[in-house]
């Protein structure tokens, strides 16, 4: 029986600014670019209407509101973002100072940033962090489960064309090194999209921890969360400078339940002897503070290492009003299923403790940008990976404007120069879709293999140069095999195959960077170099040259110099 060969048809799109990825950052970029006169297309792998970290809403927005929050709080946010010092100070100060601009725009667009008519500042904070006036030195706590839809409306009102269900895979560059366009695939139809673009904004395009490292001990979550590094790897393969591959963040979260760690619980984080595990060492629940210990994954690890586990989030003793307040916050941030589960199981949170555990590492790999988030590739903009909703929103707004202004005087490329590149990718994708039979592998085999390698050889803190190199060796072997045998029986599976290929590229850079940074710093821990080395107060920059990663050190930008 002859089975006809699947071929991809081509769809060509000509635009000024291509925004890759929706969510808060992408939609702010699209809005901003359109407001600055550009023809914009917003392309999203899923659906812009419910996309990014704001799919179900969000619970906090740490911002500096002049006259309401104190200058000390502003300094505090800046200090937190500067972390262990490897960060570009000019961009961080700029973003913090623009958070109020975003807040004002969102209120204008009908996003509900208040509770009962007033700003609410609460949760994830330390006692004594309140300043004058009022207790405003905490993140703004809000709940609008439809903020994503409201942002989408603003995008559509500006005649931005939204293309959903298309995964952008590669950027195209002119011979002078400037962005010329991009290619992508539909996740539903056998179609290759070819974009001609004068500038591109990638939002955020980074990795979700749960696609690189497996959850603690069990596969408690879907293997398909969308953050697979598509945008950052597209920038990497286009030759952009990539940084922070060796750094991670770790949150703590409800054990086993499929939660991402968000939500403001009103309770005390305790060990099994009933003692609070970390600062602020609350002894009873506090609505205004939440419990900052909930962010301390290392404290949870320590409790287990000293035989005092498990760790319990303990809301016992809260009032009915406190519980209503907690539920108000939970409604946003995708915790509706949890609320329903609680009701279904007839659980009274005022009489129950819930186990919390440190989550797996979340790599912070990103492209390095200037204050406009432009990467080292002209016309290619990329949002930073850390800083939650405020940083995404501000960086989207700033980069969208810059990307729109960049197009002045840029001649549209002749994509015929890129025919070979486009054809090469097209053939690769068609090959994957035309493989059939058990001698070929489903994408999940590759996802599992990535989990094994990263968990086995690169899980902080029990890793060394030897384990990282063993991991790297195994990973390169995986990549060779995966390229030869990954199969997809439809466009949906094709997109997952291309995701895992991106993840393999991400894992390679994480392993190489972790190996090269011979120190432990912050959450980046390794056993062979257990201390911080002040000589390494620098970015470790990875750039692809002749198809291979090259590494160098570069000083971060400082304002006071």
């Amino acid at each position, binding site marked *: 029986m002859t089975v006809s060969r699947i071929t991809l048809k081509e769809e060509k799109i000509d635009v000024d600014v291509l925004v890759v990825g929706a969510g808060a950052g992408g939609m702010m970029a699209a809005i901003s670019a359109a407001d600055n006169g550009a023809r914009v297309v917003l392309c999203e792998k899923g659906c812009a209407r419910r996309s990014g970290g704001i*799919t179900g809403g969000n619970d906090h927005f740490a911002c500096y509101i002049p006259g309401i929050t104190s200058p000390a709080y502003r300094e505090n946010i800046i200090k937190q973002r500067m972390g262990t010092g490897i960060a570009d100070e000019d961009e961080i100060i700029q973003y913090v100072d623009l958070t109020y601009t975003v807040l004002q725009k969102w209120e204008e667009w009908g996003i509900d940033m208040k509770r009962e008519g007033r700003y609410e500042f609460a949760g994830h904070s330390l006692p004594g962090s309140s300043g004058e006036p009022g207790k405003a030195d905490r993140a703004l706590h809000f709940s609008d489960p439809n903020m994503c839809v409201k942002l989408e409306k603003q995008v559509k009102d500006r005649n931005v064309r939204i293309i959903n269900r298309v995964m952008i895979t590669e950027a195209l560059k002119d011979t002078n090194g400037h962005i010329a366009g991009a290619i992508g695939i539909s996740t539903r139809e056998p179609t290759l999209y070819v974009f001609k673009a004068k500038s591109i904004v990638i939002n955020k395009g980074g990795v979700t921890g749960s696609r690189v490292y497996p959850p603690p001990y069990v596969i408690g979550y879907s*293997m398909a969360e969308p953050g697979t590094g598509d945008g950052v790897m597209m920038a990497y393969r286009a030759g952009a400078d990539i940084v922070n591959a060796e750094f991670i963040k770790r949150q703590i979260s409800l054990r086993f*339940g*499929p939660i991402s760690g968000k939500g403001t619980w009103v309770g005390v984080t305790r060990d099994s002897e009933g003692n609070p595990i970390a600062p602020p060492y609350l002894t009873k629940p506090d609505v205004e503070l939440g419990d900052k210990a909930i962010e301390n994954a290392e404290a949870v690890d320590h409790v287990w290492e000293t035989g005092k586990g498990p760790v319990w989030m303990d809301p016992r003793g809260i009032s009915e009003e406190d519980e209503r307040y907690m539920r108000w916050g939970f409604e946003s941030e995708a915790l509706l299923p949890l609320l329903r589960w609680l009701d279904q199981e007839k659980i009274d949170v005022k009489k129950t*403790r819930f186990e919390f555990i440190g989550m797996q590492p979340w790599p912070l790999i990103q492209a390095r940008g200037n204050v406009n988030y432009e990467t080292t590739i002209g016309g290619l903009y990329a949002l930073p990976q850390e800083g939650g909703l405020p940083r995404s929103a501000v960086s989207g707004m700033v980069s969208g404007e810059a990307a729109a202004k960049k197009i002045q005087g840029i001649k549209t490329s002749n994509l015929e120069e890129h025919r070979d590149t486009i054809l090469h990718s097209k053939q690769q994708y068609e090959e994957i879709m035309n493989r059939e039979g058990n001698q070929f592998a489903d994408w999940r085999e590759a996802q599992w293999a990535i989990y094994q390698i990263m968990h086995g050889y690169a899980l902080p803190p029990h890793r060394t140069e030897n384990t990282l190199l063993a991991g790297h060796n195994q990973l390169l072997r995986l990549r060779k095999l995966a390229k030869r045998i990954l199969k997809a029986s439809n466009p949906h599976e094709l997109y997952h195959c291309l995701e895992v290929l991106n993840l393999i590229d991400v894992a390679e850079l994480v392993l190489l960077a972790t190996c090269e940074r011979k120190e432990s710093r912050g959450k980046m821990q390794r056993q062979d170099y257990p201390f911080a080395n002040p000589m390494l107060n620098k970015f470790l920059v990875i750039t692809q040259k002749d198809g291979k990663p090259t590494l160098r050190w570069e000083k971060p930008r400082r304002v006071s110099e």
Partner: protein
Amino acid sequence: MPPIIDDKKCIKCGKCAYVCPVDVFYGSEEDAVPTVSYGDDCYFCSACILECSVDAITLRYPLYAQPSYLSDA
């Protein structure tokens, strides 16, 4: 497996299939109750629940995703 659509409540508007970030309802037909083609990929973002105007969708927590708790009650 997570999304369960109550087909007695479903009005076949297709909004859940339209919004799902990971296309759990891939291949669903128009004007029909959506098919859960890739239920294992559901990561409980709640987009479908938030879009459904008739509350026809439940997201079941799989056996491996049951929160661990101690009850005083």
